[in-house]
């Protein structure tokens, strides 16, 4: 698990012969101090690690206060350091539910941009119980008594090892969830790594915009435990980070293998290669809440109804003033009625909006203002 196989991810077909019976998730979690390359398994999900050696420095369990009616076990959080001698270059904080649930994990405050102000938020998916977003922000290196136990333990580890952290980190984070599981992973980089290229790009986006988009794919692939064979992402602000992403490279290799094996002819190969090379990340708008949508629809109905209703009133009452007064009463009644009905359809109807509450998971440090 710890070391990257480094083999091509061209999946053909493999037979897995299981001789063990029953559930067989690793019972003994790796010890603090263990080194990882490529990815780390957190409660059955792979968390992609950028290139280099990463040391597991803390693991902790906590509760998600908003999840009062779900049996999710606990939230497991791991923290890994990437070191250059005594300097902490970067660290990763990843959180994940231990037990799968059924009705989804809502979303993160950071995905909606509510309550937090971040330089960049991108929603890649926001459909029903499926959410996936990325965000960039600055994180202060603070530890308080309210901090998650994993972060406090990581700070203690750093102190014991006499490691030097950054006072403020540049963070690229992701929240990915489906009906069963949630994964929150945040990559924190020491700004000193940015070095000579500090001046490039928008100073407000911390120079992580392109890296955020490139890392999106390894994070998603890890959520489905498919990182075997995929080269790790380069660290941000390096020359390699500007090149083709490891995911695109792997896809092009897979395509070439299909052509070589006769599954694709030359025309098909060239057509798909061109499509791959111009493929862009999908992004969507942040989801509209039930209340907002109900209000939007009710307002639209009130506005569009005004003229025909007034004309109908005038036709019957033959008095412009009476017609207008009646319209006022009708609009109030109609607004209350339509909002109630719309909200009920959106909450309980057959195509109801699967509301995504914001679920706070443990984080390391504190977002800078």
């Amino acid at each position, binding site marked *: 698990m710890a070391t990257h196989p480094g083999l091509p991810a061209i999946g053909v077909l493999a037979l*897995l012969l299981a001789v063990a019976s029953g559930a*067989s998730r690793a019972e003994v979690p790796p010890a603090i101090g263990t080194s990882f390359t490529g990815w780390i398994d957190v409660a059955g999900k792979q968390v992609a690690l950028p290139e280099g050696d990463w040391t597991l420095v803390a693991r902790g369990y906590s509760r998600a206060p908003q999840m009062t009616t779900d*049996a999710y*076990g606990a939230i497991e959080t791991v923290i890994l350091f990437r070191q250059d001698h005594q300097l902490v270059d970067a660290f990763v904080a990843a959180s994940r539910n231990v037990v799968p649930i059924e009705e989804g994990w809502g979303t993160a405050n950071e995905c909606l941009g509510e309550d937090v102000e971040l330089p960049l938020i991108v929603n890649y998916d926001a459909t029903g119980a499926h959410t996936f977003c990325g965000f960039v922000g600055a994180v202060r290196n603070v530890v308080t008594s309210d901090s998650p136990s994993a972060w406090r333990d990581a700070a203690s580890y750093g102190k014991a090892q006499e490691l030097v952290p950054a006072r403020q980190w540049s963070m690229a984070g992701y929240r990915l969830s489906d009906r069963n599981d949630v994964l929150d992973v945040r990559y924190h980089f020491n700004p000193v790594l940015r070095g000579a290229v500090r001046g490039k790009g928008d100073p407000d986006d911390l120079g992580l915009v392109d890296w955020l988009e490139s890392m999106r794919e390894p994070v998603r692939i890890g959520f489905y435990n498919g990182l075997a064979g995929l080269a790790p992402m380069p660290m941000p602000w390096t020359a390699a980070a500007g090149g083709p992403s490891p995911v695109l490279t792997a896809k092009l290799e897979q395509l070439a293998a299909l052509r070589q094996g006769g599954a694709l002819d030359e025309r098909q190969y060239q057509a798909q290669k061109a499509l791959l090379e111009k493929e862009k990340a999908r992004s969507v708008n942040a989801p509209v809440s039930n209340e907002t949508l109900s209000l939007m629809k009710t307002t639209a109905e009130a506005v569009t109804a005004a003229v025909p*209703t007034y004309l109908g*009133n005038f036709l019957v009452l033959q008095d412009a003033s009476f017609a207008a007064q009646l319209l006022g009463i009708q609009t109030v009644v109609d607004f209350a009625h339509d909002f109630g009905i719309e909200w009920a359809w959106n909450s309980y109807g*057959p195509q109801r909006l699967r509301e995504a509450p914001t679920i706070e998971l443990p984080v390391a440090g504190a977002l800078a203002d």
Partner: protein
Amino acid sequence: MSCWFIACLAAGLAAEARGAAPPAAGDTGERVIDLAGKQVVLPGGAWIVAGHGFDQVPGFDDVAYGAIENVVLFRVVDSRVAAFVLAQRNVIATERGWGFAPECHRADLLDSVVYDGADGHSFCGFVAQVATTVDAGSAAAWRSAAGFAAGRGLAMPATWLMAGYRRNNLTDTLDVRYYFDPALAGNPAVAANRDLSRARIYGASTKSLVERAMFWRDKPDREPPASPAVRAEADAVNDLRAWLGHMRYAIEVGFENRADELPAVPMPWTPADQAFHPELSVRLAGLEQLQAAKVLPPQEYARQRAIAEELSAPAAGHRWTAEQLTVVKAMTDQVSGAVSYFGSDLLYTGSIQNASQVWALDQFLDAIRYTSLEYAWQRLGPRRLTTDQPVTLREAGRVR
């Protein structure tokens, strides 16, 4: 067993050993196969690779998915193919989703259940009878498998009972179909029957219409037979529908490459299937692990265990079209608004005649306006109904 791109799970630990040779017909394995990076769970004992191939998806010319890789595995009993599995999967991850299987919404099949109807993330299961046919339109792996069976002198039944799944997300699709000789149900009447259609077993019904209109009602686990003469067939199909529900989670876990967490998967129509609840096994294993590590105190463990035991697989329900939803909402709007509108009109005009005229005119205009506005919201609004389209993959045999 030849080892091509083979990973063997031993004592729960994956030891990967990969080669580059294509799959050889005759390879055997059990529990799980890995198909283009996704695990496909196999029920019961040993399965033999009978065919492997690649196909293209018609109409997917503007998507770089590589190809659809497919494989067929046989379960052979006494020179007869008692069951087979057809699994299909895209080789290269895409960006825009894989629609849904047409079978997800076919009311004429023996069963079809939508587990997740979210756009770009559809997951459904279905049960159907399938005729044994091989033609140019069949999946490449199935054409190979038919040759494999002929070469080895393996007999096949004329009709299969198939339980299948399509699990998609924005990047990948996995279609797994398990075909069983009806004789496995253990009833000679079922084995001899060539017509296992919904119409014959459950009778012609307006099930789909009723279900859509009464969307809040759960589907019955077991449907009654159309007549006593087809009771055995109805029981066999109901048992397979139950197996479909039990296997749902196993398919989902395989899609996430975590099949090693599953207990052994039973064949349908076996006593073991009655006690097979993989999602509960996985949940309880996780909770017990946390309790053993003292992460969960006993009280919290007991509370969460009770919740886990009550959970059942939710079916998202059949999706409504924009037209259906608009019509039903417009009717509800008219009915629910009638009294309050009339009351306010009466209150203001003080005349039943005037109030009636205003009310009738208003209702008429409102019906037109509401319907057109609602339809526009459903089609173009920020939470519009799904835009997923059906995606047909090649099959083994022909769904009747």
